[in-house]
């Protein structure tokens, strides 16, 4: 189960995730990343309520980071210890901007 809450404000887009970002739920987030980032200059992910991430989720974050590298900035905030460890093991802590 994954809840995705989007809030657009001008050229800022905030996406808050709640639940599990896994093989089953990643396509929902992928649809947003592939289809709704046009014109966004700042993308903020709020992971305060994200309980779990697998490589399927990392794949979407990498795609989002590549898009935002071209058109603006992306930050990921409120990352739990558990999710942070996944970022560290995979080198994603160097690719992403964690706040």
């Amino acid at each position: 189960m994954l809840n995705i809450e989007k809030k657009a404000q001008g050229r800022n887009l905030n996406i808050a995730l709640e639940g599990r970002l896994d093989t089953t739920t990643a396509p929902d987030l992928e649809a947003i990343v592939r289809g709704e980032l046009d014109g966004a200059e700042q993308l903020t992910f709020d992971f305060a309520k994200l309980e779990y991430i697998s490589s399927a989720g990392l794949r979407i974050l990498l795609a989002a980071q590549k898009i935002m590298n071209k058109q603006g900035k992306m930050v990921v905030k409120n990352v739990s210890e558990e999710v942070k460890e996944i970022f560290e093991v995979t080198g994603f802590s160097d690719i992403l901007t964690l706040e």
Partner: protein
Amino acid sequence: MTDKAIPQELTLEAVKENLSQVMDFVDVRLEEAGCPPKVQMQIDVALEEIYINIANYAYNPETGPATVRVDVSDEPVTVTITFVDHGIPYDPLAKEDPDVTLSAEERSIGGLGIFMTKKLMDDVVYEYKDGSNILRLIKKFN
């Protein structure tokens, strides 16, 4: 220590749609064994990678069964999760590790799941025996 009445083995059709069933089956047993949340997340990640690998490749383009078994032993508390499928022989551990120091632009996601599995578990063991792929994830609780 573990309640013998609760089955420790689950056999189902190895398709992506059954991932949450596999997760729930294992998570209930981990909680029962007093698994810390951080370790549970690590095991879940490894579990998902291995299970999805089987679902995607073992019987491709058809589907077939997979069995997941959970064993918990004491001193120190160690969980072993065993996956068995009867698909094509495939050792996921033979894959080369990805370079995790590359930038976003240079990165591709291939091989990351298995790499994480190896990093997060204490041991990952593969064998092909009597027509079955057998993969074991071994993780201590502390």
